[in-house]
C-alpha cells in the first residue's frame, strides 16, 4: 500500500483535464471485456448506474445489495432534484458556474479537478435519464422544468415531483434489469459484504453473508466497486434508511483503504423534529420547500402562542434578515446552524422547543393552494401523516437532522482508493463535496460516477495491469472468511444484557452532542473517551438474539454497530484535528463575532486521509491546490 496519496489529477488547464485524461488512457478491447469480472457492491444511483453501464460495455458484472431488491437502495428516498448546467432557463448558468458554486458551497475543501469534471458531465446525465423514460417535471410547452436549490442563484435543478431520487434510481434499476435479463449482470440481493479480499496487494474479491441463510460466500473478480453510500447512521437518528451502514467501507478501510475527512457530516436543515425516545429515524422535508417556505421563529423567547396568533412584526425571519441576497436559500450548513442558534437562544417552537417554523402562508396567498399542492403535495401529505398537522393551515415545524456524509473512502481522480483495484463511487467516497454538499448534488455525483466516470477509469486500470487468475480457493479468501465467521460467532456468544438498539442510541447521543452541528475541543475529547468506553462495554455486554443460520436482522445490525463504534471515534479525532470551521464542520473556537464559520486556509487546505494499521490511525494530508478558484470567505449575505 502506498503511504503517500497521489491524486493523479491530469495536467493541463482545468477545463481540458477530463478530455486530456480520456485521450491518454488505455482501453480494453471489446472482445476482452467479457473476460473481466467486476464486483459492484451496492445498487443505489452510483452502483446501479455503474453495474448497468459496465454490463452494456461487455464486462461481466456481479452486483450485490443488502435489500431484497436492487430497486430499494436508499437513493430512492432523495426528494428534491438533480443539478445540471443545462441553462435551459437562460438565467446565466454555465458549467463554470456550477463548478464554482459547488466548490464554494463545499467551503473550499474539495478537489477542483473532480468538481469541474462533475459539472461537465452533469448535462449528459439529464440526457441519459430522459432517454430512459424518467418522468421529469415539464413546462406546458413540453420542455423540462427547473427549480432553485440552496447555494445557487440560478434555477438548475431538474426534478420529478418530490420523488426525484426514486425516479432516477428506477431508471438505473431498469437499465440494470435489462442487463440482468440479458445475462450480463448476475444479481445477488440480500447479501451483505463483510470483507474485502486482497491478493498481491490488489482488490480481488469480497466475502458476503447471505442474509436469508446466514451462509458466508466468496466472490472474486478483477476489480471491486464499492458503492455502499454514507455513514450518517453513526448518529443513530438520521434521515438515512435503517439499513444504511458503513460496514463495507469500514472493512475496506481496515484492509488498507484510507478514510478521508470523516468528520464532514451534513446536517440537513429541514427535517421533521424528534417526538420521543422510541424514535427510529428522522424524515427529511425536501430543501425545495425553501423555494416557497419562509423560515421564522418568534422574536420573544419562550413565546407559547400558536403561530397564527403571532403577529407579523413579532416574527423573526432570521435567514432573510441575516442573508438578504440568498434569504431562505442559503446552503444547508448555514441554515442548520442558524436554526440551532435560534433554538439555543430560547426561541424554538413546538412541545420540545427544538424546532423552527417553515411557513407557506405567503406563498399560498400569492400562488394559491393548488399551485403549492402541485409543487409539494406529496411532501405536505407526508408531513401530515407523521405529525397529524396540516401544513396548508399551520406552518411546518422543522429541525436539522443528520442527512449525508461528505467524508468517505479516499479516492484519486480515477475514483480508485489507495488499494489498487478498489474503486469507490457515490456517497461512499469523499471526493466532490468538500465540507458541505449543496442540495441536488448527491444525485448528480452518484450518476456521474457510475454512468460516465467509471467506464473510463476502470478500463484504464484493467488494461494497465496484468491481473493473474484468482479464484475463491486462494488462501486470502479462507482467511477473510474465517475473520468474518469468527466475528459473527463472537457477537452471538456474548449474550449480555443490553440490546443492539440501546447501544446504538447511546452512540448516537454521544455523536449528536459532541460531534454534531457544533463542536469544541473539550467535547470532542469527551466523545473519544465515551465512545471507547461504550465500544468496550458493547463487546462485553451486548445481547444479540437468535442464530447465524437464518435471517437475523439483529445480528446484521450488531455487526454494523460494531463498525460505527470504531468510525465514531475516528470522526471525533478528525474533528479535533481540524482546528477551523468549514462547511458542516463548525468548531465553536473558530467563529467570527457574528457567529459565522472561520476557515484557516493556511493550515487546513488539505484532505485529511486516515490510514489504519494495527497500531491505530495515522493522518496523511493531501494538500488541496486551487489553481482556478480564489479562496474567499463564503458569503451569502
Amino acid at each position, binding site marked *: 500500500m502506498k503511504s503517500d496519496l497521489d491524486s493523479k489529477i491530469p495536467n493541463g488547464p482545468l477545463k481540458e483535464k477530463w478530455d486530456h485524461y480520456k485521450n491518454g488512457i488505455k482501453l480494453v478491447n471489446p472482445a476482452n471485456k467479457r473476460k473481466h469480472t467486476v464486483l459492484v457492491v451496492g445498487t443505489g444511483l452510483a452502483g446501479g448506474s455503474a453495474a448497468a453501464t459496465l454490463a452494456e460495455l461487455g464486462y461481466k458484472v456481479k452486483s450485490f445489495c443488502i435489500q*431484497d431488491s436492487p*430497486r430499494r437502495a436508499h437513493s430512492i428516498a432523495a426528494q428534491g432534484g438533480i443539478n445540471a448546467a443545462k441553462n*435551459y432557463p437562460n438565467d446565466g448558468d454555465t458549467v463554470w458556474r456550477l463548478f464554482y458554486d459547488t466548490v464554494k458551497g463545499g467551503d473550499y475543501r474539495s478537489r477542483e479537478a473532480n468538481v469541474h469534471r462533475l459539472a461537465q458531465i452533469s448535462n449528459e446525465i439529464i440526457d*441519459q435519464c*430522459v*432517454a430512459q423514460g424518467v418522468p421529469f417535471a*415539464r413546462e406546458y410547452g413540453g420542455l423540462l422544468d427547473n427549480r432553485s436549490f440552496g447555494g445557487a442563484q440560478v434555477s438548475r435543478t431538474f426534478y420529478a415531483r418530490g420523488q426525484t431520487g426514486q*425516479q432516477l434510481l428506477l431508471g438505473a434499476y431498469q437499465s440494470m434489469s435489462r442487463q440482468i435479463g440479458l445475462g450480463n449482470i448476475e444479481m445477488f440481493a440480500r447479501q451483505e459484504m463483510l470483507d474485502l479480499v486482497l491478493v498481491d496487494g490488489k482488490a480481488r474479491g469480497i466475502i458476503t453473508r447471505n442474509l436469508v441463510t446466514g451462509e458466508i460466500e466468496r466472490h472474486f473478480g478483477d476489480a471491486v466497486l464499492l458503492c455502499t453510500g454514507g455513514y450518517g447512521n453513526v448518529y443513530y437518528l438520521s434521515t438515512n434508511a435503517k439499513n444504511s451502514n458503513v460496514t463495507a467501507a469500514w472493512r475496506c478501510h481496515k484492509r488498507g483503504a484510507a478514510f478521508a475527512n470523516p468528520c464532514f457530516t451534513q446536517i440537513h436543515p429541514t427535517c421533521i423534529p424528534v417526538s420521543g425516545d422510541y424514535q427510529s429515524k428522522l424524515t427529511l422535508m425536501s430543501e425545495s420547500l425553501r423555494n416557497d417556505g419562509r423560515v421564522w421563529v418568534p422574536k420573544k423567547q419562550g413565546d407559547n402562542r400558536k403561530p397564527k396568533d403571532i403577529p407579523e412584526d413579532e416574527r423573526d425571519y432570521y435567514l432573510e434578515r441575516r442573508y438578504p441576497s440568498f434569504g431562505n436559500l442559503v446552503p444547508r450548513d448555514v441554515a442548520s446552524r442558524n436554526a440551532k442558534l435560534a433554538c439555543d437562544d430560547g426561541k424554538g417552537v413546538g412541545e420540545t422547543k427544538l424546532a423552527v417554523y417553515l411557513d407557506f402562508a405567503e406563498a399560498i396567498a400569492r400562488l394559491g393552494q393548488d399551485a403549492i399542492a402541485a409543487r409539494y403535495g406529496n411532501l405536505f401529505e407526508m408531513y401530515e401523516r*407523521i405529525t397529524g398537522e396540516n401544513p396548508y393551515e399551520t406552518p411546518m415545524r422543522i429541525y436539522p437532522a443528520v442527512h449525508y456524509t461528505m467524508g468517505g473512502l479516499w479516492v484519486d481522480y480515477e475514483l480508485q482508493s489507495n488499494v489498487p483495484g478498489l474503486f469507490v463511487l457515490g456517497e461512499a467516497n469523499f471526493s466532490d463535496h468538500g465540507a458541505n454538499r449543496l442540495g441536488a448534488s448527491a444525485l448528480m455525483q452518484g450518476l456521474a460516477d457510475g454512468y460516465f466516470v467509471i467506464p473510463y477509469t476502470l478500463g484504464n486500470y484493467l488494461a494497465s495491469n496484468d491481473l493473474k487468475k484468482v479464484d475463491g480457493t486462494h488462501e486470502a479468501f479462507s482467511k477473510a472468511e474465517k475473520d468474518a465467521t469468527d466475528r459473527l460467532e463472537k457477537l452471538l456468544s456474548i449474550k449480555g444484557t443490553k440490546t443492539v438498539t440501546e447501544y446504538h442510541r447511546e452512540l448516537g447521543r454521544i455523536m449528536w452532542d459532541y460531534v454534531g452541528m457544533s463542536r469544541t475541543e473539550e467535547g470532542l475529547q469527551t466523545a473519544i473517551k465515551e465512545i471507547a468506553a461504550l465500544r468496550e462495554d458493547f463487546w462485553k455486554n451486548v445481547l444479540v438474539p437468535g442464530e447465524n443460520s437464518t435471517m*437475523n436482522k439483529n445480528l446484521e445490525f450488531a455487526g454494523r454497530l460494531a463498525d460505527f463504534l470504531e468510525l465514531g471515534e475516528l470522526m471525533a479525532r478528525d474533528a479535533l484535528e481540524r482546528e477551523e470551521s468549514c462547511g458542516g464542520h463548525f468548531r465553536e473556537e473558530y467563529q467570527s463575532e457574528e457567529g459565522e464559520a472561520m476557515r484557516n486556509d493556511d493550515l487546513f487546505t488539505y484532505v485529511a486521509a486516515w490510514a489504519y494499521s494495527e497500531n491505530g490511525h495515522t493522518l496523511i494530508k493531501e494538500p488541496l491546490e486551487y489553481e482556478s478558484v480564489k479562496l474567499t470567505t463564503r458569503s451569502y449575505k
Partner: protein
Amino acid sequence: MADSMNIKLKVWRQAGPNVQGRFETYTVPDANPHMSFLELLDVLNEQLIKSGSTPVEFDHDCREGICGSCGVVVDGVAHGPQRRTACCQLHMRHYKDGDTIVVEPWRAEAFPIVKDLVVDRSAFDRIIAAGGYVSINAGSAQDANNLPIAKTAADLAMDFAACIGCGACVAACPNASASLFTAAKISHLAMLPQGMPERKMRVTAMVNQMAEEGFGDCSNHAECEAVCPKGISISTIATMRREYMKAMLG
C-alpha cells in the same frame, strides 16, 4: 391524546419457508400515539429480546414510504387502515388504548414466506427484467430537450411511475395478481415516446413473465387500487390489456 396505550398484537410467526406458521399474541404496554406502526414492532422486539425470545423479522428500510421494503397485512388490510399509506407511515394515533391488532405477511404463492413477516418478492424483479425498461446505453442519448413531451402525458407517466414495488396489490388481490404492479410500469412507459420501438415486445414479455411467476389474472376487484400506498389507478390495467391486445393483433 393519551400518553401511553396498551396494545395487544397477534403476530404471524414462521421460522422458515417450509415450516408451519402460527399466530402468537403479545402485549406492548407502553405504546404511544406519536409512534409509527413499525416503531411499535421495534418496541415489541426490544421486549422479546430482553425476555430471551426471538424478535419478529419484518422488512423495513427508509421508513418514509418510498423504498417499498415494508409491507404487512394489518387487521386484514395490506398496509393497514390508512389509505394511500405504507405501514411505515401509519401512526399509532389512529388506534386507541386496549386495541388488538392482527399482523400477517403478504400471502401469495408467488411471494413465498422467508421468515415471520418477510416474504420473497424477487418475482417483481424478474417481471421488470423481462421488459420494464427502455433500451438505451449510457452515452448514446440526445439532448434532453430535443424530445418535447406534453405536460399532461409527463404528469400521467409520473403518476404511474410512482409505484414503490411493495407488493400490497398482490396481497390484497383475491387472485394474487400482479396486474397493478406490471401495468403501472407498462403504462408509465406507454405514455412516453422513449422506448416506442420495443413497446409490443415489452407488454408481451412482462405479461408472460407475470403468469410464469404464478401470479393470478385480474378480474376487476380493484382491491389493489384501494390498498396501493401511491394511489395507482386500475386504469393502468386497462391500458396494459389494450397494449397487450395491440401487440397480439399485429
